[in-house]
């Protein structure tokens, strides 16, 4: 019997697990995929918004502004890179300038600090990469960027280090109320728990509706992105948004913490909760929109494109807290933008509420710090020599594009909640994320995964399930090895 069972190992589920692991409670995170960060969390803009977007007084506004304030400290504790590069909402038409003022006013009302309205010259001075046609901008210095994989993995690792259990490849099929808690039925058998946290992304309504008569409804909203090579790195220095339209925040252009430029997302409601396919129209729209306000968009520098689904609840508000007619069942549903920005706040908000219910004592030895995988080439010469003595594999570059060593890849596999798939390696180390997109390194990474996990190489997958990389061996050498 668990005290708290969390459905979904996305960034919200992992944040809740990490905050709850401060207490003497039995925590379990169940995830249907083979790794953490496989759903909504893996494909978004990686923006920590300042907080002027959401309606004043909403949960979204409150969580965003608090989350933004707390993000720096959280990232420091978890060794996650976070860069407060600031954001610009730009206006391209004179007649829409008043809309900037409205955003500014809302930002002030929401408690956003440091907001400034800029005229054309000030905007271009701050962001010379913009089109000369720009008329003005709202500057929010507190906005930042981070890598969503890095944050999710860090939260999960830290939660695991503090005793939270992770059950991967475990899909929840039903939730049944029983005296004093819930039976959570999964493809791996039944799990009993006192309380449930529903952090199931685009499926959160399904689980909510299993236990409550007060139904909610989530529409997956597809967002398509294009990622540009680091060679395009200097294109913009801030996260740049056009003025918001009804549909969403519009196509943004932003640097990433790894020095690429990200363009996107589109915003199209879809029916398919697994519909993470990109479309011709979508990708064209991304490039076309960005071209409107960036001076020279190097469209030839696109190294990959992808799509993600945001979990948009009909009320367009975060659904956070205990479900009225289902005691002990806590929702973290409808977490669309500014969900990532709100992570520290949502984690704490849920944990506090749940702890009150559970009444557990705080752990004496909660380890709030977690160290990331050391990037060999970023260490001092002394540190490098030391690491090399520990394992000479740090001297072999496996991923040429991102300069990732074999030692780093081995570490990604050997860590608690370590990588078991190619995508897992990619998200933890960046191997395969560069301009060749794994062309050179994937054969070697597969080999390392197979030997570390004691599995035949043919069974290695891209991202679990049926995503096998290979069809077999042409000379049967592997079966002989076995």
């Amino acid at each position, binding site marked *: 019997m668990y005290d708290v069972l969390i459905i979904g190992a996305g960034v919200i589920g992992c944040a809740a697990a990490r905050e709850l692991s401060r207490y003497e409670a039995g925590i379990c995170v169940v995830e249907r995929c083979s790794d953490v960060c496989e759903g909504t969390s893996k494909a978004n803009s990686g923006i920590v918004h300042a907080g002027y977007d959401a309606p004043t007084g909403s949960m979204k506004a409150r969580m965003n502004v608090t989350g933004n304030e707390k993000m720096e400290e959280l990232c420091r504790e978890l060794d996650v890179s976070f860069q407060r590069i600031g954001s610009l909402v730009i206006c391209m038409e004179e007649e829409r300038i008043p809309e900037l003022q409205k955003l500014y006013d809302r930002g002030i009302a929401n408690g956003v600090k440091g907001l400034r309205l800029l005229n054309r010259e000030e905007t271009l001075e701050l962001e010379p990469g913009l089109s000369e046609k720009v008329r003005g901008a709202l500057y929010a210095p507190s906005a930042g960027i981070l890598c969503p994989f890095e944050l999710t993995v860090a939260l999960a690792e830290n939660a695991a280090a503090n005793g939270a259990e992770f059950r991967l490849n475990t899909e929840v099929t039903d939730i049944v109320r029983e005296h004093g808690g819930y039976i959570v039925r999964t493809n791996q058998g039944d799990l009993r728990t006192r309380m449930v946290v529903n952090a199931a992304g685009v499926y959160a309504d399904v689980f909510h509706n299993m236990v409550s008569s007060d139904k909610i409804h989530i529409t997956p909203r597809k967002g398509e992105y294009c990622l540009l090579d680091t060679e395009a790195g200097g294109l913009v220095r801030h996260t740049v948004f056009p003025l918001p339209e009804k549909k969403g925040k519009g196509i943004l252009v932003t640097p990433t913490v790894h020095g690429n430029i990200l363009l996107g997302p589109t915003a199209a409601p879809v029916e398919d909760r697994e519909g993470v396919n990109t479309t011709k129209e979508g990708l064209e729209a991304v490039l076309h929109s960005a071209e409107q306000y960036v001076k020279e968009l190097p469209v030839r520098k696109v190294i990959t494109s992808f799509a993600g689904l945001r979990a948009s609840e009909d009320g367009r508000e975060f659904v956070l807290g205990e479900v009225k007619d289902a005691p002990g069942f806590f929702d973290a549903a409808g977490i669309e933008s500014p969900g990532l920005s709100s992570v520290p706040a949502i984690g704490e908000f849920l944990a506090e509420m749940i702890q009150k219910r559970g009444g557990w004592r705080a752990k004496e030895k909660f380890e709030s710090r977690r160290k990331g995988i050391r990037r060999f080439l970023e260490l001092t010469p002394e540190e490098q020599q030391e690491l090399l003595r520990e394992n000479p594999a740090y*001297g072999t570059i496996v991923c040429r594009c991102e300069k990732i060593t074999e030692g780093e890849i081995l570490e990604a596999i050997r860590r608690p909640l370590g990588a078991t798939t190619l995508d897992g390696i990619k998200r933890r180390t960046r191997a395969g994320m560069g301009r060749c997109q794994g062309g050179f390194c*994937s054969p070697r990474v597969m080999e390392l995964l197979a030997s570390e996990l004691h599995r035949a190489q043919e069974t290695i997958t891209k991202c679990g399930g049926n995503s096998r990389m290979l069809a077999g*061996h042409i000379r049967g050498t592997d079966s002989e090895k076995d």
Partner: protein
Amino acid sequence: MKRIEAVIVGGGPAGMAAALSARQNGLENILILEREEELGGILNQCIHTGFGLHTFGEELTGPEYAARYVEKIEKEKIPFYTGTTVLEIQSEEQSKLKTVTAVNRIQGVFQLQADTVILAMGCRERPRGALNIPGFRPAGIYSAGTAQRLVNREGYLPGREIVILGSGDIGLIMARRMTLEGARVKAVAERLPHPGGLMRNVVQCLEDYDIPLKLNCTVAEIHGRERIEGVTLVQVDGENRPVPGTEEFISCDTLLLSVGLIPENELTAAMGAAMNEKTGGPMVSETLETSVPGVFACGNVLHVHELVDHVSREAEEAGRFAAEWVKKR
């Protein structure tokens, strides 16, 4: 810091020929840095024939062509470090000396001082991203060269039902190779009205095995969530626009991309050398010298060559020019 007269970045066909030529032209103190575990570069996975007609007067396979050079390197006792990746080349303006930073398992990160550097890093394949094909991102999409490495070096078959996008030579060669290993190549789609690779390869790799070559045709969409399950092919008009109504679904478990090669010039650009937008390689003088004095370039890092024999010729020149450069100082 160890001082070397000519540091050669890359131990493939270009690097080996440049090193040998530099030695023949009087340089004693040479070092080849190769990132793979052995010399030979991409030739080691090109097990088909078609190499060396000009250089050796006979048709060799890639590994045989490489082995002849490796033998000479060993005979000349030219030192080489394998498993060694060059991270950075810096040129000092005053002394014109180059500092080469590299990393390997034995020395960790180390530096060398070089009178000249010969760039011979070869080229790489254009990835899917450059094409921006819509659809899912399932397993089973490989560049033709990656598939070649998997099949020929490691013995793994990427899949059993193949569609190839792009008719570059590596794609054509792999169509035959995978057919011989029991896979079914269902189509080769080429956006242009003519094949990208050599006609001889169209004949002996596709026609010999009745593999359809679909010209003016591209992949409009990728299907399959976990492993690729098929592609939609579509005809394109003269301006590369899809022609509505010509869509055709082909089921497959693998999509190979053979859509061109790009010189691999990260080091070159980072060094500050002037680049040639058209070739993707550095700008060079008649003596194959880049805009950074004493840094030479040859082979596919300079521009993509059709034949390895041409790479070897050019690399010999670069080796000679580098030797002359050292002697002039």
